[in-house]
Every structure is written in structure tokens, then in C-alpha cells.
């Protein structure tokens, strides 16, 4: 599936929720289910300190694809992280850099990415792009 197809899939999933509460219950569920962030990666250099919640991001190359792992101390933040990883992880740097991430707005979570939220998500997305730029240079 392409990035856009996965985005469409997520938008479809969220369209099932009439109530905001159900949407957040789902974010909590996928936040709780997000695994794979190793304790070794819980380093100062991987930490994005929001005023409200903390986010850790790790990235590594698997062939020409970037594998992202991330974690947060707040579950709703972690739920949104899980969605971002689902869309962007396992992609080439070019795919990531050319991606138009419209799903966050489409599922009504855009305010979580506003600078005033200070939950680390906006900085995390920038960090994911920076990794893509760096790995693109490395891959040549």
C-alpha cells in the first residue's frame, strides 16, 4: 500500500466514530498497543520534550527503508504516534519527504499538531522528516 492508501484507510476507520469519545477511546487503545520502543533508545538525544508530554523517536535504516519507533508518556499522544508510524515507517526517504500528511486533519486531530499544544507531536513530525533527509544523504 502507498502512503496515501494507508491514509485513506485510517480516515475510513475513523469515519466510523460518531462521538469524539469513541475516537479517543480508539487512540487510547492503539496507544496502549504500540510496542517496539527499546529501553536502549530512551536517551536524551531521542527525547522531544513538550511542555505537556514527552516523546521519544528512534529511526534506523532497513535496506533503503526507514523504520521509525517512538514512544510517549501520554497515551493520547502515543495513539497519534502509532498512526504516524503506521503511515510513515517502512518507507523510503523520498516517499516520506514527498508525503502529504492530510489524514491528521481529516480525522479531526489537527489541533494536536498545533504549536500551542506543546505535546511534542509537531516536533516529532519535524524530527521524522529530518531523519528522512539525513538517511537520504547517507544512501546517496
Amino acid at each position, binding site marked *: 500500500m502507498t502512503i496515501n492508501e494507508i491514509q485513506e484507510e485510517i480516515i475510513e476507520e475513523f469515519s466510523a466514530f460518531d462521538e469524539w*469519545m469513541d475516537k479517543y477511546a480508539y487512540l487510547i487503545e492503539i496507544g496502549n498497543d504500540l510496542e517496539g520502543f527499546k529501553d536502549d533508545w530512551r536517551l536524551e538525544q531521542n527525547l522531544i520534550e513538550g*511542555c505537556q508530554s514527552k516523546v521519544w523517536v528512534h529511526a534506523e535504516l532497513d535496506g533503503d527503508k526507514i523504520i521509525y519507533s517512538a514512544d510517549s508518556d*501520554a497515551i493520547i499522544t502515543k495513539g497519534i504516534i502509532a498512526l504516524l508510524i503506521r503511515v510513515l515507517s517502512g518507507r523510503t526517504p523520498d516517499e516520506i519527504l514527498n508525503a502529504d500528511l492530510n489524514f491528521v486533519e481529516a480525522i479531526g486531530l489537527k489541533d494536536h499538531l498545533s504549536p500551542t499544544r506543546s505535546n511534542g507531536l509537531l516536533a516529532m513530525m519535524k524530527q521524522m522528516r529530518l531523519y528522512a533527509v539525513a538517511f537520504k544523504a547517507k544512501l546517496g
Partner: protein
Amino acid sequence: MNINIDKIRSDFPILGEMIYGKPLVYLDNAATTHKPQVVIDALADVYQKYNSNIHRGVHYLSNVCTQAHEDARRKVQDFIKAQHTHEVIFTRGTTEAINLVANSFSDTFLKAGDEILVTQMEHHSNIVPWQLLEKRKGIVVKYIPINEAGELILNKLDELITEKTKLVTVAHISNALGTINPIKHIIDTAHNHGIPVLVDGAQAVQHTPVDVQALDCDFYVFSGHKLYGPTGIGVLYGKEKWLDKMEPYQGGGEMIHTVSFEGTTFNELPFKFEAGTPDFSGSIGLGAAIDYVNNIGLDKIAAYEQELLDYATEGLATIPNCRFFGTAQHKTSVISFLIGEIHPFDIGTMLDKMGIAVRTGHHCAQPLMQFYNIPGTIRASFAIYNTKEEIDKLVDGTKRIAQLFG
């Protein structure tokens, strides 16, 4: 002693706003309070009727505006029962008032090695200005510790005071915990050692009557915007004997007597500390806010808010795994809590969706959060316009959220 809550709520236009289609439940009053129509009108009046720069015009409007600004100073004087009008300095807020003292008091009275006592529960604005002095002047900052309940451990006070202690600075009421500190006792103890005391009243003046002469504090600071007044205006009260000897904080117009290239002489109090065009619309708005509070009566306000605090504490305590931070015997209008291990941001985010505004995070009191070893709390803080029905919504909403987390 009853207050007319419907009348009070109708005084605040913003309380009619809908948030995500739901009526606003505003419980973030320790951050800032809303403004009654009389304050909004006072600000509009300045700009619509008599806006003019003050203290220097010969023309009519300037005189009217100057009069209104100085009337506001007298209202502040009466409000905190200062002996002299010129002991009331207008600042941008509590933070600037503390920075003013940190700079001007230290320039005149402090030398390397001198000590300043603050407390473990202070807002960053009553920690960082003193830490800057540590770097700049070699001043040593010491901290009065607190107990689990969030009360100052006062028997440590005598141990911490040394012959090098030159100032004690303490919050009247904790912004994160609601603890009402025994400032009279602290002031008396410090004075027994000849040490002046600064009281941070940012969380106090809107909840409890303050008499700076009865307290005998040397400095008392607060912000207008937490007292139903405009943002950008605050007050430094200082005893004349200190202010007279302190160096000016900032230079500019208004604060000078004569200026030549050979040197400058400074204006008298309070103008010595008010460089530049003062925020006269802010001061006039603050005066209107003080009138508003006085008309209701701070005793009535305190009694009503105590009712709200007790009601909210009982309600939240019914939620399984609710943990309170700040259980001091004497506290007011602030409840800090967590539900089990749920991150405060998660609960705050979902309460927001219900139209309920609370504060989450460290409340600019990170040393305090380190003491409790938590990332932050959810803080509900009350004002005169809050109701028990709103508290019911907070409790019910928090319960629903907690259930989602299982």
C-alpha cells in the same frame, strides 16, 4: 453572606461562550481569570473617551487620564491597605515586580555570598530571578522544604536563616497546591533576625483580604489579570524605607527628574520605578476590577470559594485512585490531582473536549513536581463565578475518562 451567583455570572460575558458546542466550564482561574463587563467597559472608556499620555500633558484629556491612573493607584493602596500611595508601583505583572526587586534590591543591598531564602513550592517566577542573581552576583539561594501535604516545614526556617540571609521570599498561596502559607509567622520570624520579606500574592489577592501593614511585609506583589483585571498590569508594593534606597530598575522617561549628559537625577516614588509610558489603561482597568471585587466583598468571595473547594474535593475523592497533591490544612481554590497513573495531559485533553478548561502540567513549579516525583498534575482552580454544577461536570467528566483507561 450568600452571593448572587446568577448575577455574578451575568457580569462575565465570556461565560456565555460555547466550546465545541458545549457551555464553557472554566476551571483555570489560577492561570488567569475572566473579566467582568465593568472592567471591559473601563478599558473601552479609556480609548473611546480620554486616551492621552499621562503626567506630562497640559491639555484636558491628559489631565483626565492622569487623574484616572492615579485614582487607580489609590484604589490599589486601599485594597492592600498600604500606608502611602507612593508605595504602590505599577509593573507589568507579578513576574516583573519580582524581577524589579531582585535587581534593584540586590544592587543596593546584596553582595556575593549573601543568601536569599525561597521555598520549595514557589512558581518559577519566584525562583529564576533569584537564581539569575546566583550567576550574576554570587548570591546563594536556599530553599525552605515542604512536607507531603504541601506545607512549609517551618521549624527548618530558624536553621536556614543565617547572618548572611538578606531576604526571604515566599508565595502567600501556592499556585500548584493551593496551600495558604503562614506568612505572618514567616514575616515575624524573619524580622526577628532583621531580614525583610517579599510576599508573592499572585494567587492570594483574589481570594483573601490582604493588609500589608498588619502583615508588616516589606514587599507584596501581584498581577491584575488573576484579579479579574486586564493582562499586562501588576503591582509591587514596597515599604517606603526600602524603595527610597533602592536603585531604579529601568531607565527612560517618567522616572527622571533632570537629565543631562553629565548625569541624571531620578524622580521621586513611585515614578522612579515606572520608566516609560505606564500602562494607564491597564491600571484603570485594574482599578475597576478592584471596585468590582470590593462590591462583592472578599470575605464573601473567600467563603463561597471555600464551599466550592470542599465540594470539589469531596466529589473528586469518589473517583477510584484519585490522588490529591496539596492537602494542607489551610488551602484555597486550587485542587491538584491525578487519577492513578493516567498522564495529566490525557485527562486534560479529554476534559477540554467536554468544554471543561483545566490546567495540566507542572504549573511552572518544576521543583515541586520533582518533590512529588510526578510529571505534573491536573489542576482545577476556582473563581467567584464558578458553580457546584460546573464541579459536577468536572467530576463526572473525569470519571468517564478514567473508565476509558480501565
